[in-house]
């Protein structure tokens, strides 16, 4: 009896004690601390997941979050310099959250499925994930963009097999390319640069539209493509990939990684691709694809103490030869009437980079980093009778200090940089050379309130030894109406010194004379734009809608005019206007648990003043559409992908000149729309994956891509007037072997 009374009292007391907690069960209190040393994090953001109800931590890391508006049970905790965490808090009134510091060098770990459209970055960014990369033929960077709508890849001419990217309707040269956030493959490497990074080297690719950050220099105008290379710490022990296609081109890749000590790890990546078989499917007497041998090795090291110091070193060496032209051409044949027309190029390139960063003790938001990189690019080539050879030596040093004013709502990055470039080009006896020495300094301020607003303002000042002071301001704003509706605005200036020959190698495969206006000036442009992202859920399936608009206007541009005359290409400074207006709307939605859909529509209006007349840029269609269907059975054992790209009508130059017409007008004609389909099926086993795919499945080809293909030494000969695929349907198969 006594005991039951005691029990009752105990129960009552317990209820009494618990009642206040039950009553306010919805209000959440807690503390956010650093996982490594348990120090409180001040100003960390705590938000009910999927709502805009948020708070931030006080000077001791404590927070109180008012009840969730509609019964949410999870909170998202984020803090600059730390990995955000989602915590289930159902039935809990108090939580302690430990956040882990993100390593000081900007790098994100990719594991399995990742959001393709980041909700966190202040810039309009997309990610091509490791999984996306296996959706198309592995081989190199060019194919990596196949399942992405924002970056276009086009064939530059009908002979060299070179591919170029385009963003916002602008040439790839206006896109800054970086590997692990270090500028790479610039300048004279441009013509074949997409070949130089094998698909198996790549962990993921970030695509940033608009001018981006000032940290990486003044060059990006239309955007940035950052290739994240495999991380020595996280990548597989062994990866072997073999690929072969119906043109008898084959690729082989081997990646191997070692963890030498708990702090030191390395990955060695090897690649070769070879084509030894002559293919002329369109019967124009020219090889559809040049014969080639390419050897490429990349070695990356990472030293991570797990505390303050992180260092990375990477070195790459490659050698590539290509032989193209008429089917009968053999290396060394004379390049004159009566012989066979041929092109040959030999490239050797070595490059290296190092990144070292130190994060201050007990100040995870404060760090200092040094980036060093150097490259030598050496090439020797001839396109018919025209020889083109040269080299480029580059060096870059970039010191970045990152910290906060008071609390982490106000952070900044500042630093100094020094860029050295030594260019030397010989075009058929004409010598062009220049040396650039560019010291610079930059400052970037980032304001981030704890809920929904991020402002980034950056400016850099560089002193160019040839062109004087260069000022580059850039701004980014990100505003979240709610966590599912995000607006981004960007404005910025870009500056670059053009390399007219390297950026127009296609025109070398013609008998046009190259004319350069005296004192070609650097290119300068403003880029303004913005994007709106809406994440949605229909029938419990998630989707995203992204729309963006960018306007790029050039203050100066080196305009290649190959349209006014069929016999020459003239490079002049812009005299008038040149702009690009680009609009894109994209929707991604999971149709069923196994079927994912991505569709996009793009509109481009790109105009340039040629010879005093503002005209549509030839070859760029106004309308484009893109559709990607991705199918995967549970656990991705079977995967199938189908991508369709549709290109609307476009203007192409008509090279049959009527001598009675006045010389300045570009004669154009309209060509029909067409679509290209690519598909791939993959079957995964525990360690093996086999894939079978096809590119250009409908076998759409441009008729007569080479003008005067039968008279390659005549003045009319021109292989650069290409707007549709030159190679027809290609079937490929391959296998991957992975040891984790």
């Amino acid at each position, binding site marked *: 009896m006594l005991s039951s009374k005691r029990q009752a009292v105990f129960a009552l007391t317990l209820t009494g004690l618990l009642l206040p907690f039950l009553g306010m069960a919805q209000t959440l209190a807690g503390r956010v601390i650093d*996982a490594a040393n348990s120090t409180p994090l001040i100003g960390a953001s705590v938000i009910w997941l999927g709502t805009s109800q948020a708070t931030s931590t006080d000077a001791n890391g404590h927070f109180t979050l008012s009840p969730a508006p509609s019964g949410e049970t999870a909170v998202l905790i984020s803090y600059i310099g730390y*990995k955000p*965490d989602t*915590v*289930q808090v159902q039935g809990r009134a108090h939580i*302690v*959250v*430990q956040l*882990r510091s993100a390593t000081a060098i900007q790098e994100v*770990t990719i*594991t*399995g499925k990742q959001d393709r459209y980041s909700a966190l970055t202040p810039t309009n960014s997309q990610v091509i994930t490791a999984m996306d990369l296996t959706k198309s033929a592995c081989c190199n960077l060019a194919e990596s963009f196949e399942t992405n709508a924002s970056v276009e890849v086009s064939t530059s001419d009908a002979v060299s097999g070179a591919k170029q990217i385009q963003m916002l309707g602008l040439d790839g040269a206006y896109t800054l390319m970086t590997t692990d956030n270090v500028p790479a493959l610039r300048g004279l490497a441009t013509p074949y640069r997409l070949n130089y990074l094998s698909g198996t080297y790549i962990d993921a690719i970030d695509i940033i539209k608009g001018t981006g950050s000032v940290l990486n220099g003044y060059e990006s105008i239309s955007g940035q493509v950052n290739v994240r290379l495999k991380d020595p*710490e*996280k990548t597989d022990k062994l990866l072997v990939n073999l690929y072969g296609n119906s043109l008898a081109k084959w690729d082989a890749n081997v990646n191997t990684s070692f*963890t030498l000590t708990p702090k030191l790890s390395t990955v060695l990546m090897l690649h070769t691709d070879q084509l030894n078989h002559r293919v002329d499917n369109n019967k124009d007497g020219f090889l559809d694809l040049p014969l080639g041998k390419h050897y490429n090795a990349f070695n990356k090291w990472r030293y991570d103490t797990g505390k303050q110091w992180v260092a990375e070193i990477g070195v790459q060496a490659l050698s590539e030869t290509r032989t193209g032209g008429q089917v009968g051409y053999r290396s060394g044949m004379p390049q004159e009437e009566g012989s066979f027309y041929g092109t040959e190029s030999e490239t050797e390139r070595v490059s290296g980079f190092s990144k070292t960063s130190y994060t201050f003790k007990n100040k995870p938001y404060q760090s200092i980093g040094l980036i060093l990189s150097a490259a030598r690019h050496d090439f020797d080539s001839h396109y018919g009778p025209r020889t083109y050879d040269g080299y480029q030596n580059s060096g870059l040093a970039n010191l970045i200090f990152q910290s906060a004013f008071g609390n982490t709502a106000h952070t900044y990055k500042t630093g100094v940089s020094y860029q050295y470039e030594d260019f030397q080009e010989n075009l058929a006896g004409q010598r062009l050379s220049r040396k650039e020495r560019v010291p610079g300094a930059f400052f970037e301020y980032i304001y981030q309130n704890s809920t929904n607003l991020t402002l980034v303002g950056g400016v850099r000042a560089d002193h160019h030894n040839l062109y004087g002071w260069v000022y580059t301001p850039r701004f980014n704003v990100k505003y979240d109406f709610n966590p599912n509706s995000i607006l981004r605005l960007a404005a910025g200036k870009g500056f670059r010194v053009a390399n007219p020959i390297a950026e127009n190698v296609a025109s070398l495969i013609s008998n046009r004379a190259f004319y350069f206006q005296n004192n070609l000036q650097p290119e300068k442009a403003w880029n303004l734009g913005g994007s709106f992202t809406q994440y949605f859920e229909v029938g419990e399936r998630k989707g995203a809608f992204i729309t963006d608009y960018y306007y790029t206007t050039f203050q100066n541009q080196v305009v290649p005019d190959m349209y006014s005359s069929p016999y020459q290409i003239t490079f002049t400074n812009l005299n008038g206007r040149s702009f690009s207006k680009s609009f894109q709307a994209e929707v991604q939605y999971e149709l069923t648990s196994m079927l994912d859909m991505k569709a996009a529509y793009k509109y481009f209006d790109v105009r340039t003043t040629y010879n005093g007349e503002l005209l549509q840029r030839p070859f760029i269609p106004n309308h484009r559409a893109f559709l990607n269907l991705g199918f995967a059975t*549970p*656990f*991705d*054992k079977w995967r199938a992908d189908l991508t369709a790209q549709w290109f609307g009508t476009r203007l192409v130059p008509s090279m049959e000149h009527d001598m009675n017409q006045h010389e300045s007008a570009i004669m154009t004609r309209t060509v029909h729309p067409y679509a290209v389909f690519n598909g791939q099926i993959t079957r*995964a*086993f*525990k360690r093996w994956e086999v894939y079978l795919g096809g590119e250009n499945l409908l076998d759409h080809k441009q008729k007569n891509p080479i003008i005067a293909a039968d008279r390659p030494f005549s003045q009319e000969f021109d292989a650069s007037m290409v707007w549709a695929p030159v190679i027809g349907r290609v079937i490929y198969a391959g296998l991957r072997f992975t040891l*984790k």
Partner: protein
Amino acid sequence: MKTLKIWMLSLVLTGLASVGFAQGGKKGEEVKIKTSAVCGMCKATLEKGLAYEKGVNKATLDVDSKVLTVSYNGEKTSLDKIKKAVNELGYDADNSPATPRAYDRLDACCKKDAVH
């Protein structure tokens, strides 16, 4: 007498062992393994990883209890092999610890001491 007892005992034990073995060799086996999984991402990793193991029909992780229920074909695989597979994915399986390299490669949120 004593020796006989020992003999008998051994016989019984052998019998039991073979019964045990026979049971382990049946087609529709099910086993529950306590793992070190802590989050939804671990669930995805484990369930996907085991789907690629020979002889495993189905694997389901209950995140709250950390118990992984595996139904498998005992003629093609064994409990030891399944546990080893779990270890190689970076997780402890009952008393058998995770492979250190695999554990290191896990995302921070999937590590044992991650706070959730």
